[in-house]
Structure formats: structure tokens, C-alpha cells
């Protein structure tokens, strides 16, 4: 990310064929797609596709038979559904291999070493401690299952024609499902295993040196200089994971990415980042590769998850807020930096950190601007996550409206889920789904921002020259095309594979057991690199006059008002039948 002193990057170069193997944007695309290709081949070519297909078909056949038999979802229907959900690509040998070699430091509360090492004795102690609660939950689930079975048999005895019996069976089955969910959650706390992440972390560091070092060599930079410094960047990322997974830090949304920046900045502005580390602070290379992989998780089919109300709340309100906030920042606040303005606007209106990363890369914002934007998002997200559910309860806003409101306004998905859960189950479901639909906007946002910057902003800065299509192509951040291509590919695969296979092998294999694991690391590395190469004084310059805070507050206030209004209109006036079904 770079800016000339005038504030806008104006790149007057010409595209060459050699750019395909020497320019960072293209290398990020090739590296990202190499990881995607390996994951797709491993799971679909050599994975348990045939076995999964057979088991999914069997389960779906059973579910069709049950659906034809009864006017409600029977116990057998749910058991078939559970069988489908158990099928995960990550349980295959390749999945286990990738998962174990990409493990990052885990959760801890009082002993930081728990993040890296857990002995057999410690694992057994944790399991033994959680066992009584699991036994209790399991007994409750068994009792609920007995009641559900009896109720379903009573309904079946009346040939499913007795409305009261059907209603009773449906209610008892719902209670059984809730008890099963609690038992499953309790069980997961009794299956702790011993681990030692140190050897795999060393191996992973070497692997990253090879793949990114190869890219550095192609960009005609020194592999050795990069490798030497990368150990420190990786170490800061590991420490960031450790600090970010501390229970209290997680609770307030202060994860690995935030700690990467903070830790890196503490080092850079106190003892100073050694000069030999700076060649490894390849912020843009890590971020662009991470974004191409993030494309695999941007599935356009998700936007219909909650019907048309969801599209209006997430895809109509969001661009309106984004554009209005940007214009407000330019015309009223007179923000000195357009790139800071658009990054803060996207961060606040779309979905926080991930939108900030994509937008900053698309408009070539400075790393200090990305840092500032993410910092603002983290602080306000923590506040909103606590205050919004309390406010909604206090004034008596209905759960579904409250959930839609929080989903469309709180920045990060984890915080949205937390806030939704504090309010109630239905609020959680609506909030999380609205946020998911907003997350999918990232691709479109990055593309539109990149296009706007090339066609309008850079043209305004370069008034003396007319700009042809060739130069626009040269200026356009190519990695955005890689990001979109990955998104389109996975959206097509997701819609054509069938729900069962898409969940088990695409999402549950290629993404969760491949692209997402790498993406997570690449973003953490990039934030560690940002921190290590950020000067406090440079950062403080962007804070002058408090304009970024004012921009965020004003934009978020508008977002809150518009989202609440739109959610009310859509869920209660235009589509009340959808709300009634939830």
C-alpha cells in the first residue's frame, strides 16, 4: 500500500507479459490459486467423494420418505440430517494432515503455555472436570428422546391426522433437538486431547518461507534476505495468536490480528525493528494472497439465506451508507486522505476488518490508514456488542428486529453472534445470517472501489493526461480479479454440488481444511508485518483533528438509523410472513 505525496497513486507504467511472473498482484493470484487447486484436487480427486455421495444419497432418500409420511420432521429425518452433518472432508487423511500442520496457538485463560502445549495429564484433568456436566446433559437428552419417540408414535398411531398429536410430537422433537445440542456442546468439552504445537509451527514457518520466498525471488528480491527476517515476523504472528486467544481478549474482540499490529508497533517504536527484518515485512503480498483465498469463502448464493428482507438490509442499506459516509467525509469533514475515508467507510458499513483489508488493498491505502480503521472498528465493536443487546431488551424491540439491526450494524461476525446470543436464540440466527450476507459484499465492494479509484480518483489527480484502456488495466489492482475469480468459482461449485456435498467436501474440506487455514495465517502475518513497519508518529498524523473518529461515529449513527428503519419495514410491514416463520 503506498501513496505519493500528492495523496493519490498515479501509475504511468505499461503492462508487460513478464508482469505475470514478476508483479506482486499476479504472484498473489498464482499462489492463492495454487493453494486452491491443491485443496480441490486433494478433497475431490483423492478424497472420500464417492463414499460421501453414497451416504448423502442414502440420508436424503430416507428424509424424502419421512417427509412423505409425516407433516413434520420426524426423529428419523433429524437422525439422517445428523448423519449428513457428520461427513466432513477435514476428517480425511489429507484434512487431518493439513489441520495439524497449520495449527496456531490455542485458547488459554491463566497459563499462556496452554496455548502451545497440553500434556496427557492436563487433557485428562479437563475431560474429567467436564464429565459430570456431560453425563447430566446426556441423561436429559436421553429422556427428551424417549418423550419425543413416544409422542411421534402416538401421532403415527393416528396416521398423522390428529392435529393435537402432531403438534405434541413436533414440540417434543424440538425439545429433544435442544437437549441434543446441549449434550453435544457438553461432550465437546470432554474430548480434549494432548498437543504440542511447537514442532508444527517450526515446520509451517519453513513452508511459508519457501512459498513466499519463491515469490520474492520471482519479484527479483533476495530469498535469503526475506527468509532471515521472516522468522521474526512469524514469531510476532505466533505471539499475536497466543495473546489474541486469551479468554478475556477474545471476549472483547481483541484477536490475533489486533495483537499483531499492537505487538509489532511496540517493537518498532521502542527497541526498533531490526533492518534485516524489514525485507520480510511483505504486508501487501501476504494480504493480497490472503484475499485471493478469502474469495473462496465469498459465496454469492448465501445472499438469499433469509429471503428478500435480508437482501434489503444487507445489500441495499450497506452501499447507501458506504457512499453517503464517503461523501460526508469528503464534502463536510474534508478528510485529507480519500483512501482513509473509503477504508473507514467500508469498515464501518460493510463488515469490519475483512472489508477494511479488501478495500485498503483495492485503493492502495497506506498501512497506517488500515491500522487506524481497524483500531476504530475494534473499539466501537466492543462497545456496541455490549450496549446494543441491553438497549434492545430495555426498550422492548422484538428479537428478530433486534437481531437484524445488530447484524447489519455491528462490524465483526463474531461480535454479531455474541450480541445476538445475548439477546436470544432467534436474534442470534437472524443477526448472524444478516452479517453473513453482508460479508459476501466484500468482493463487490473491493471491485467497485478498485474501479472507482482507477477511473475517477486517479484520473482527477492526473488531469494533464488522457488515460486509455491500457493504462486503466495497468493501474487496476489485479489481485481483485483473482479474489473475484475465486469467489465466482466457489459460488458455482457451491450451487452445483448439492447442499450435502457442498457442506461436507467444499466447505467442510476445501475451505475449512485448506484455504481458510492459510488465509487466517496470511492475514495474521500481514498484521504482524504492518505493526513491525509502522511508526507511531506516522499513525498519529492521520488522527489529527479526530476526523476519522467523527467520520466513523457519524457514519455508524446513520447506519444504525437506516438499518433499523429498513429492517422494520422489511420484516414487519412488507414481509411479515417471513418473520412469522422464523
Amino acid at each position, binding site marked *: 500500500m503506498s501513496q505519493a505525496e500528492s495523496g493519490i497513486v498515479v501509475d504511468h507504467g505499461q503492462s508487460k507479459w513478464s508482469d505475470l511472473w514478476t508483479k506482486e498482484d499476479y504472484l498473489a493470484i498464482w499462489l492463492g490459486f495454487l493453494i486452491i487447486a491443491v485443496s480441490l484436487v486433494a478433497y475431490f480427486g483423492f478424497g472420500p467423494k464417492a463414499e460421501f455421495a453414497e451416504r448423502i444419497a442414502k440420508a436424503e432418500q430416507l428424509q424424502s420418505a419421512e417427509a412423505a409420511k409425516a407433516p413434520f420432521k420426524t426423529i428419523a429425518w433429524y437422525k439422517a440430517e445428523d448423519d449428513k452433518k457428520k461427513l466432513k472432508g477435514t476428517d480425511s487423511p489429507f484434512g487431518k494432515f493439513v489441520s495439524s500442520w497449520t495449527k496456531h496457538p490455542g485458547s488459554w485463560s491463566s497459563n499462556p503455555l496452554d496455548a502451545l502445549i497440553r500434556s496427557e495429564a492436563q487433557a485428562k484433568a479437563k475431560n474429567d472436570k467436564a464429565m459430570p456436566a456431560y453425563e447430566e446433559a446426556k441423561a436429559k437428552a436421553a429422556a427428551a428422546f424417549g418423550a419425543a419417540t413416544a409422542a411421534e408414535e402416538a401421532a403415527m398411531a393416528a396416521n398423522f391426522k390428529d392435529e393435537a398429536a402432531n403438534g405434541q410430537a413436533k414440540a417434543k422433537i424440538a425439545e429433544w433437538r435442544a437437549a441434543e445440542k446441549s449434550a453435544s456442546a457438553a461432550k465437546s468439552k470432554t474430548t480434549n486431547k494432548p498437543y504440542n504445537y511447537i514442532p508444527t509451527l517450526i515446520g509451517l514457518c519453513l513452508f511459508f518461507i519457501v512459498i513466499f520466498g519463491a515469490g520474492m525471488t520471482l519479484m527479483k528480491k533476495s530469498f535469503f534476505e526475506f527468509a532471515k527476517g521472516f522468522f521474526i515476523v512469524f514469531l510476532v504472528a505466533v505471539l499475536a495468536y497466543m495473546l489474541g486467544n486469551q479468554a478475556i*481478549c477474545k471476549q472483547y474482540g*481483541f*484477536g490475533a490480528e*489486533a495483537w499483531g499490529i499492537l505487538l509489532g508497533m*511496540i517493537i518498532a517504536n521502542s527497541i526498533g525493528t531490526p533492518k534485516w527484518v524489514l525485507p520480510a515485512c511483505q504486508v501487501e503480498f501476504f494480504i493480497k494472497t490472503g484475499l485471493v483465498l478469502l474469495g473462496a469463502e465469498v459465496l454469492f448464493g448465501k445472499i438469499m439465506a433469509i429471503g428478500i428482507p435480508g437482501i434489503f438490509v444487507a445489500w441495499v442499506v450497506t452501499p447507501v451508507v458506504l457512499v453517503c459516509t464517503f461523501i460526508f467525509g469528503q464534502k463536510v469533514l474534508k478528510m485529507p486522505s480519500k483512501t482513509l475515508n473509503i477504508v473507514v467507510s467500508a469498515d464501518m458499513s460493510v463488515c469490519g476488518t475483512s472489508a477494511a483489508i479488501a478495500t485498503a488493498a483495492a485503493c492502495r491505502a497506506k498501512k497506517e490508514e488500515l491500522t487506524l480503521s481497524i483500531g476504530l472498528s475494534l473499539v466501537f465493536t466492543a462497545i456496541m456488542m455490549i450496549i446494543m443487546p441491553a438497549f434492545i431488551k430495555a426498550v422492548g424491540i422484538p428479537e428478530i428486529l433486534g437481531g437484524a439491526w445488530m447484524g447489519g450494524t455491528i462490524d465483526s461476525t463474531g461480535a454479531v*453472534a455474541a450480541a445476538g446470543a445475548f439477546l436470544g436464540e432467534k436474534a442470534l*440466527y437472524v443477526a448472524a445470517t444478516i*452479517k453473513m450476507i453482508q460479508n459476501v459484499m466484500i468482493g463487490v465492494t473491493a471491485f467497485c472501489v478498485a474501479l472507482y479509484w482507477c477511473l475517477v480518483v486517479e484520473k482527477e489527480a492526473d488531469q494533464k493526461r488522457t488515460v486509455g484502456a491500457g493504462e486503466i488495466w495497468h493501474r487496476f489492482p489485479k489481485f481483485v480479479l483473482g479474489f473475484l475469480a475465486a469467489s465466482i468459482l466457489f459460488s458455482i461449485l457451491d450451487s452445483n454440488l448439492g447442499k450435502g456435498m457442498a457442506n461436507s467436501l467444499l466447505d467442510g474440506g476445501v475451505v475449512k481444511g485448506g484455504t481458510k487455514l492459510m488465509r487466517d495465517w496470511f492475514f495474521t502475518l500481514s498484521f504482524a508485518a504492518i505493526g513491525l513497519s509502522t511508526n507511531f508518529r506516522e499513525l498519529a498524523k492521520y488522527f489529527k483533528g479526530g476526523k476519522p473518529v467523527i467520520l466513523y461515529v457519524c457514519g455508524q449513527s446513520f447506519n444504525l438509523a437506516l438499518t433499523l428503519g429498513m429492517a422494520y419495514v422489511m420484516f414487519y410491514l412488507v414481509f411479515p410472513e417471513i418473520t412469522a416463520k422464523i
Partner: protein
Amino acid sequence: MITARQRWFRFSASLAGGLFFFCLVLPLLTRSVPILHRMAQHLEETGIDPSRYYYTDVVQVKESEGYLSEALGEQ
């Protein structure tokens, strides 16, 4: 001109300050303020991680999608 000793002091003080806030002040605040304490317990029970920023990182999104898919009759 800042000496090496002063640099290391700054580093230690900044790190200590950050750790003090997150490992002592914030946990104390969380335990003392009822709403924050309830939140902490709820997050512990549900396993929700507020620090995750994308929907594929949050397990509850999949559950939510599944619930809504059933409720809106798309299965």
C-alpha cells in the same frame, strides 16, 4: 539521542502496560460489572468467539443458516 537502555525500557513498559490492562484490569472489570460477567459466562457456555471477523470463522453462522433454511421451508 535515545540510548539502547531507554529503548528496552520503553519496550518493557509498553508490553507490561498492555498485558496489565488485558490480563489484570479487564478481567477485574469483567468480574465486577454484572453485565460483563454475565456476558463472559454466556460466551464460555456457547463457545462464541467475538474476535472472529468473517462468517466462515463463526460456527454459529452455519447453525443459523440451517435453522433459517428449515424455518423458511427451503429444504
